């Protein structure tokens, strides 16, 4: 097996707060291979975005990476000096943020912003960079790019702006793209276009993609594998068909059960009772135990570690002590 593009091992991120430190990410591990799309899904506050920011090295004080390792194609990047990490950002790791309306500087032409990024990372002349910028805009599906390159961000629609943001993220041919809820702020019809664009770019360039979202539909459509996060930990990770069809972790089951179907049965959607714990009040043992219907004594004492189970990996005591049949 070839080396994964991104390898995260036992990552921990802490935020220093007035009353002690809060651990937002607690022992997260995953790999993304070349050309693979990993979907990261979970409720708000599960640590999806923080994981993405940690990978690209944009955790700002009072937050910090307090443990674990992040490797980009074999190179350890979580402890690089700021200047070296800056060179990696935008060049080897591209990032797409949630809101295309605010991601672009309103006072600069989109072309200038692309050229600026290209020339920061690649040794190109102004005219060569501009030509490349036009090609990029064409590649992300912006019509008449040679004209639109001189437009200002406010002259683009939301979907078109997200395309510009994507062009900016891929302008130096990164090995990894982190897309943090790239479609949340967009119309449903535009969402599908952006998703297929990200998918196509990943395929054409062999780029690994970490797709952070809370939209299971998006994950099912795009991802090869999916990681379900809960309270700063990975509850379950595995190939997307397996996790969607046969979720193992009670939380993942609840999540899949909450997806509405078009089958027409007018049953109420399954709801997971309660809400995710605050970072300052994570329960002992398994952090999901207060909301879990199958919780037993051990869940309230021991923290479950990820266990391989077929193609999936699940952090749940149910699979440690009892056979899978009785749990399902």
């Amino acid at each position, binding site marked *: 097996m070839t080396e994964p593009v991104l390898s995260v091992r036992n990552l921990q991120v802490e935020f220093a707060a007035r009353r002690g430190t809060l651990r937002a990410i607690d022992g997260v591990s995953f790999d993304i291979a070349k050309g693979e799309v990993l979907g990261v899904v979970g409720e708000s506050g599960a640590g999806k975005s923080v994981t993405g920011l940690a990978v*690209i090295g*944009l955790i700002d004080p009072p937050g910090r990476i307090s443990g674990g390792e992040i490797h980009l194609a074999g190179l350890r990047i979580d402890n690089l000096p700021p200047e070296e990490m*800056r*060179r*990696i*950002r*935008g*060049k080897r790791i*591209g*990032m797409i*943020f949630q*809101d295309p309306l*605010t*991601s*672009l*500087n*309103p*006072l*600069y*032409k989109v072309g200038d912003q692309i050229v*600026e*990024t290209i020339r*920061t*990372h690649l040794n190109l002349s102004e005219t060569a960079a501009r030509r490349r910028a036009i090609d990029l805009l064409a590649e992300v599906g912006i019509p008449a790019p040679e004209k639109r390159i001189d437009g*200002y961000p*406010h*002259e683009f629609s939301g979907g078109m702006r997200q395309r510009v*943001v994507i062009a*900016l*993220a891929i302008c130096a041919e990164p090995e990894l793209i982190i897309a943090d809820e790239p479609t949340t702020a967009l119309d449903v019809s535009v969402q599908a276009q952006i998703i297929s664009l990200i998918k196509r770019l990943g395929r054409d360039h062999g780029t690994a993609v970490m797709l952070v979202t809370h939209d299971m539909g998006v994950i099912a459509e795009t991802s090869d594998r999916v990681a379900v996060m809960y309270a700063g930990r990975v509850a379950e990770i595995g190939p997307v068909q397996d996790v969607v069809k046969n979720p193992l972790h009670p939380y993942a089951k609840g999540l899949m059960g909450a997806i509405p179907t078009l089958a027409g049965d007018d049953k109420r959607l399954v709801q997971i009772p309660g809400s995710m714990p605050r970072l300052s009040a994570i329960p002992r043992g398994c952090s999901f135990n207060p909301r879990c219907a199958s919780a037993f004594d051990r869940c309230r004492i021991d923290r479950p570690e990820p266990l391989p189970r077929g193609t999936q990996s699940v952090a749940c005591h149910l699979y440690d002590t009892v056979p899978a049949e009785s749990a399902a």
Partner: protein
Amino acid sequence: MLAFTLRRAIQAIGVMIAVGVLSFSMFRFAGDPVNQMVGMDTSGAERAAIRKSLGLDDPVIVQFGRYIGNAAQFKFGVSYQFRLPVSNLLMERMPATLELAIVATIFAMVSGILMGVYSALRRDSWLAHVFQAVSLIGISLPTFLIGVLMIYLFSVTLGWLPSFGRGDVVHIGWWTTGLLTLSGLKALIMPSITLGLFQMTLIMRLVRAEMLEVMRTDYIRFARARGLTTRAIHFGHALRNTLVPVITVAGLQFGSVIAFAIITETVFQWPGMGLLFVQAVQNVDIPIMAAYLMMVSLIFVTINLVVDILYTIVDPRLRSTVSRAH
């Protein structure tokens, strides 16, 4: 864009007419001008003749129209105390005031922006705290006190700088400038610092607050995610976005710099319009007071107009909304 400029220009003219009403009515509050011009023993018939020859028996609206018509041609009548046309007096004094105001504004903007950017980027450094303290002094101490303290220190105690006047000036056409002689430059230092200090602290605090605000925005985070250099992010992206409100404030403040110049000019005996105005108030020289009011308003209104137009140059979003709206 043209329509926008035109509409703003019409609004500006409206403001000027309103100011004209005010300055015109000043004449009527200060008693009968004929009484001030003639001796005690002038007969009623002679007074009536003077009144008629000056057009003072015309209806008020006609007099007002004449006043505005003359003012539009920079004719403001004759000063009571100097017996000279007011417009000549003002034009003679204007270069001194404008030069002082411009130098003070440049001083305020350059040092205010530098200090503001520094204290936003190095928020916890000791120098940033010093800047914050200085800005507190600049905001809370009255202008004249700072001027007097500086005179005491630099003129009386150290003897480095002149305590009053403009120094030697050079005539360029009708304009006089102190910028070309050493004594003129030396004389400019203290008055312009005194005058600009308040604006400097204002700009510094504004730049600091705006810069901190901008540094938190998504596009700055995205610029960092693109791997741009810190330098490019701070000075290319953050500073330019910060400058939009700064231009407004600095521009609008330029008007009050000219207005505040009255105090600074009095402290430093600076031969500008402000000093002329103060002397006019003391001598109830209504034509000068009225003309000064009109001139300062004209400068204010012109600056507002220029700031509005500058806005659209700095911020492309306004450019297109403006042209789309018309």
